[in-house]
């Protein structure tokens, strides 16, 4: 029996085709069947979008789910609920769990848990090196066959140049993506926030932005000699944006993403040792923040990821240097990204491309577009609605967000996977 759902009265936004107009979308059996005006109802279930925006569901290309191993901080179920509330329809987990995702049975475990939870689609990267130890390559071919979307050592850099060269080189055998946490570990060692006046005044050991730039510049050389497919995660400095801009101009197969803290905050958010503002890489100077915005505007930065990193209170209620890094991000990703549009810095369709189309392209996922035949994964949102971020309303197990209380604009109303609604904003339901 076929199921038919008709989404009516929507402002359809599709970055891939530059589509921005009122219309309807007919979904049959989980896939987009037709896009048009006043489509025939034909016994379909009707979802009236009430004139609000309907865009491809967000593809969040970097989250930490803490399952398996640290289920007290997050599980696939709680992260799935948080993602659904954030308009995320596909999220890709880092392999830094316990055990590390470096065996294909664990890739299959993630797929099975994703089906069990039945919310946002959960995919995973696999470790680039066994046990994330940075020495021996993992079975990239078999892991990719099992469904791993790319290879990364998670929140650790692939530091050894020979290992990185071999990882990139071996990955070309199967045309696979290698994703780097771009931070030179020796330069960053012991650091807690960006080196500079504020760190000096607070008496905190700093990390120079060069730690990021050096690693990216090194990697770009290795990409050049290996022909590998390379992605730099959470780019946060002017120097890194500039290096990647030049690499793209040279035609290298290089992409990158950033995360909301790097365009919505700067190092002043650390204030008086606010550990919720401790992230990795650290919050940067205002100059770097502006460079990230510019990178998003000119397309040097391809994607925006939440960099969701749940940390419980015990990990954050500590002196700044001892506190864990990271912030939860799934439920604030869309409104923070929309700030770029509301501030006039990045056009709306381009913001949406960075949230869905580009990450889907980088990861080669059938997502991120409103094309006929595509899976019907949507986010329906009120573009204008002003509201205040409140961590108490989060679905995530953890509340470590520096954005608590921030006035913002734009709110997820409904999240749809394969035509099925997995989240509805009760307060503002359409």
């Amino acid at each position, binding site marked *: 029996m076929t199921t038919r759902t008709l989404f009516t009265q929507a402002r359809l936004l599709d970055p891939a085709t530059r589509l921005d107009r009122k219309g309807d979308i007919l979904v049959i059996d989980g896939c987009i069947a037709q896009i048009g005006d006043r489509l025939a109802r034909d016994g379909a279930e009707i979802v009236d979008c009430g004139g609000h925006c309907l865009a491809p569901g967000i593809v969040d290309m970097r989250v930490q789910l803490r399952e398996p191993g640290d289920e007290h901080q997050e599980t696939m179920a709680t992260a799935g609920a948080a993602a659904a509330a954030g308009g995320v329809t596909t999220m890709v987990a880092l392999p830094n769990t316990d055990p590390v995702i470096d065996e294909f049975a664990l890739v299959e475990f993630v797929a099975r848990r994703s089906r069990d939870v039945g919310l946002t689609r959960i995919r995973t990267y696999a470790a680039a090196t*066994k046990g994330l130890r940075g020495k021996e390559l993992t079975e*990239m071919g078999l892991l990719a066959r099992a469904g791993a979307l790319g290879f990364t050592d998670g929140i650790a850099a692939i530091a050894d140049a020979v290992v990185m060269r071999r990882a990139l080189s071996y990955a070309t055998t199967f045309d696979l993506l290698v994703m780097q946490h771009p931070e030179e570990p020796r330069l960053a060692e012991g650091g807690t926030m960006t080196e500079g006046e504020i760190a000096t005044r607070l008496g905190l050991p700093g990390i120079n932005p060069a730690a990021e730039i050096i690693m990216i510049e090194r990697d770009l050389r290795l990409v050049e000699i290996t022909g590998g497919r390379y992605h730099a995660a959470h780019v946060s400095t002017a120097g890194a944006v500039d290096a990647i801009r030049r690499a793209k101009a040279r035609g290298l197969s290089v992409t990158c993403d950033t995360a909301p803290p790097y365009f919505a905050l700067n190092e002043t958010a650390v204030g008086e040792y606010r550990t919720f503002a401790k992230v990795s890489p650290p919050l940067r100077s205002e100059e770097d923040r502006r460079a990230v915005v510019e990178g998003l505007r000119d397309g040097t930065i391809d994607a925006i990821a939440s960099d969701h990193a749940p940390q419980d209170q015990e990990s954050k209620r500590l002196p700044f240097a001892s506190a864990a890094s990271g912030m939860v991000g799934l439920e604030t990703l869309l409104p923070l990204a929309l700030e770029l549009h509301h501030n006039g810095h990045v056009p709306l369709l381009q913001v949406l491309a960075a949230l869905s189309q580009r990450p889907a392209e980088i990861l080669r996922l059938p997502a991120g577009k409103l094309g006929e035949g595509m899976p019907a994964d949507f986010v329906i949102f009120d573009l204008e609605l002003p509201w205040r971020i409140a961590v108490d309303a989060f679905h995530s197990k953890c509340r470590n967000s520096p954005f608590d209380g921030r006035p913002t604009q734009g709110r997820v109303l409904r999240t749809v996977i394969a035509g099925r609604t997995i989240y509805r904003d009760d307060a503002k339901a359409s």
Partner: protein
Amino acid sequence: MTDEPTSSAFPHRHLLGIEGLSPDDITALLDRSERYIEHNRQADKKRSSLRGRTIINLFFESSTRTRTSFELAGKRLGGDVINMSAQWSSIKKGETLIDTAMTLNAMHPDVLIVRHPESGAVQLLSEKVDCAVINAGDGMHEHPTQALLDALTIRLRKGRLQGLTVAICGDVAHSRVARSNIQLLNTMGARVRVVAPRTLLPAETERLGVEVFHDMALGLKDVDIVMMLRLQLERMQGSFVPSLREYFHFFGLDYQKLEAAKPDALIMHPGPMNRGVEIDTEVADDIDRSVIRQQVEMGVAVRMACLEALSQAPRNVAPAT
């Protein structure tokens, strides 16, 4: 069969590599080798063309089949063969390569057969001695008699080399066998492909005149010959390839991958094989398609031909390379 020279004189003083040999040189050596195949199958294998000649097997790297093959070749031609290995006392005591060469040279050998773990070492040695030198494998550079015995095996089974498509699969980066075979097959007009993960291919492999593949199904498509290379154990564990399991899955030769090749494609391996790593045991033992044991047999014939050719070579011509 007579003891007279059966081919025109070999125009090189040494056999240091396939590079530098002309198609005629190669054909002459193969023709000469072919005459020994039947001879080696007789009960009486002894001949006298190298009577009175001294041949020294000088192996700085362990080897069983190559050393034995050369030793048999020399003895069957009536020569006096002496084996010296890396355990030889003065080498162990720290004597330099050149001093060793000079010492041996003073004993007036006629042919030195040398294997050395460093590329170029055999050539260096050849420059210091008066006798003929055969390279029995130098580092990752050349192993000319292996390429010749492979060519002889192919020619015997296929009747020709020209126009055949040969896929060389596996650890090309560290393989002297691959380099010599690529040289020889290209010289003789065969089409050569290499199939390997990117980490096992040396830089700019294409410039050697081969087509590069990373996928066995594509690389073996319609080939006449599948030549497997040995993957050394220390290269399997995470540095060049992640695991034995993954390597076998994607690059190990089994019947499924072999389906892409021509139905009468031959399977070759220079030995020693890692069964279950680069080659499935059933494929290796397939009597219709695997010519791995025949390669060993051809080895003796080829080495007899090389020893004989070099012993008869004029002493006043320039070195081959």
